[in-house]
């Protein structure tokens, strides 16, 4: 589905309306408003302590808000306890009941709902089939691998047909290769079931690859809400620019601004950059350019370029090469430059003097902090 940016309370599957929460003197959430559409996969991304987990706990009902209201499927749930909310949740440590078998774990939510035995057995079998865990029914959680435990946790959360699926950093305990395959699989299942999902992570790569929309949070506020492409391409502020994806920060000086296009001086060179976030700024004010590693291009010294420097590190990544360039000017210290393919390894050896050109129309520019 194509979610709209501003969902009203009635349309949204989950709606946080000016929600605030504090723990003693610490403000965990500062008037957060967020609507999540039906079948939408929304990620809450941010560093630890940004309030993302608090927001998830409020949706689950493990915590109550100090102000504002939370609704699920149009119904205000502020005063409804967790066990009546019809949510499904996956925990960071999976929280599988260690004293129950796999089948008993999955059946737990059906027993509380008094689903008759025959139907219960069928639904447990279906759920285990969905997560590809047939034949494991009688094992205890400790006899399973991390990936299998996660599948049980997913089956347990899905079998009750929850109105919302809440995921609290479920991949953080898995090794890298397993993590990416589980991510794809979870997303496939989520799409197939059309399940509204709130996913909490501190891993920006995970957020970019999985979300329909992502909310980047810091210090109890949502800094930016948008599709991964929007957030990556046009971050709303310097925090988002540096938190999501790799970025280089270059210090420049505003020369002129006209019709959303600004001219910025980077050392001796002038570049034309998008200026929509610079309105009202005086000339010669300091500005920060955020340039993605792939928006740089390395050229031979002498060719037209913006920055001069030399190669100080080569990080061969197979499909691409990351180069670190030590700059001679005052615009920044080390630049991270991403070069597709592998020619860069031979073409720009360690210590080689190089020039760096910028694809300036795609970078983000903010007034210097």
């Amino acid at each position: 589905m194509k979610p709209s940016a501003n969902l009203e309370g009635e349309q949204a599957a989950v709606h946080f309306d000016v929600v605030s929460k504090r723990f003693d003197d610490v403000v965990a959430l500062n008037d957060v408003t967020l609507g999540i559409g039906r079948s939408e996969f929304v990620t809450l991304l941010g560093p630890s302590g940004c309030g993302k987990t608090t927001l998830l706990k409020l949706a689950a009902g493990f915590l109550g808000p100090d102000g504002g209201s939370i609704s699920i499927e149009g119904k205000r749930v502020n005063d409804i306890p967790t066990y009546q909310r019809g949510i499904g949740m996956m925990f960071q440590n999976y929280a599988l009941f260690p004293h129950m078998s796999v089948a008993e774990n999955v059946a737990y939510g059906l027993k509380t709902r008094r689903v008759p035995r025959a139907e219960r057995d069928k639904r447990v079998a279906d759920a285990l089939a969905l997560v590809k865990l047939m034949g494991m029914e009688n094992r205890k959680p400790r006899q399973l691998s991390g990936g299998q435990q996660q599948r049980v946790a997913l089956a347990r959360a899905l079998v009750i047909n929850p109105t919302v699926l809440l995921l609290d950093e479920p991949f953080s305990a898995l090794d890298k290769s397993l993590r990416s395959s589980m991510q794809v699989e979870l997303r496939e299942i989520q799409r197939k079931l059309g399940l509204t999902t709130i996913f909490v992570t501190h891993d920006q790569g995970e957020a970019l690859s999985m979300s329909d929309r992502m909310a980047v949070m810091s210090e109890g506020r949502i800094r930016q809400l948008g599709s991964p492409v929007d957030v990556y391409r046009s971050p709303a502020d310097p925090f988002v620019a540096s938190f999501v994806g790799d970025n280089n920060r270059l210090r420049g000086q505003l020369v002129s601004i006209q019709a959303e296009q600004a001219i910025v001086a980077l050392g001796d060179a002038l570049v034309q950059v998008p200026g929509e976030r610079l309105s009202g700024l005086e000339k010669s004010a300091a500005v920060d350019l955020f340039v993605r590693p792939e928006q740089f291009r390395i050229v031979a010294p002498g060719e037209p370029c913006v920055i001069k420097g030399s190669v100080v590190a080569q990080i061969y990544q197979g499909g691409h090469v990351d180069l670190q360039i030590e700059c001679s000017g005052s615009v920044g210290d080390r630049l991270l430059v991403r070069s597709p393919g592998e020619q860069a390894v031979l073409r720009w050896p360690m210590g080689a003097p190089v020039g760096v050109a910028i694809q300036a129309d795609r970078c983000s520019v903010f007034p210097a902090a």
Partner: protein
Amino acid sequence: MTPRSTYQKVLGWIGLLTVFVIVAFLILPAAVVTIAAFNDKPILSFPPQTWSWRWFGRALAYEDFRQGFFNGLIVTTWSSTIALCVGGMFAFVIDRYEFPLKSAIEGILISPLVIPHFTVGLGFLILAAQVGLSRGFAIVVICHVILVLPFVLRSVYVSLRNLDQSYEHAASSLGAGPLRVLATVTLPLLLPGLVSGWLFAAILSFNEFTASLFVTSQRTQTLPVAMYNYVREFADPSMAALSVMYIVGTAALIAFANAFLGLGKVLNIEQSH
């Protein structure tokens, strides 16, 4: 094995020797009593000249010991069970809820650790006389509950602290109300802590002497009190024989608990999951 210098090896041997000496020191009294129990002569002497099993027979046949043993079982079972229920509930409340005077109440519950057992016993004796409570089992059980409560409370409290709340959160997210969560998730996961608390309380209660001396009567005297009364009149090795059986019995109980629950879990050394 990692390579070690001579210096490290010497340190290692010294450490090993220290451990050996400490262990020997710890088991010394039990070893002396065990050997003395097999003395054929009707006096407690060490080392024995002639050997015999007969004092074991005498200890088992002695009516006051038999009565004391069964009285002890009654008192221990009731007091540990009541202490487990009361202490468990208090531990739960202290762990989960914030309320005024919380630390004061916590302090009072732990206070039997600082109040001497004879004070508790004496207090109950005076109180019982005052309210006209007969010196039956009730007073002994109540007295023991108070004495073992801090240990049970600690044991359950530590288990609750170690219990990851996400299990309970998971259960409630799956639609289980508070009582169901308690019955199907919290209590089963706390079981090792509850068993260890009960066992600890039971051993303490069964061994308790000082307060029991005050609150028991001829009819309700527990085994330690019976042993005390015996040793005032006789000095034969049946006391030692009884001690040996006592040690073997307790060891068997702990071995049993270990086989079914794991010693680490029972003694609350390991985390319960």
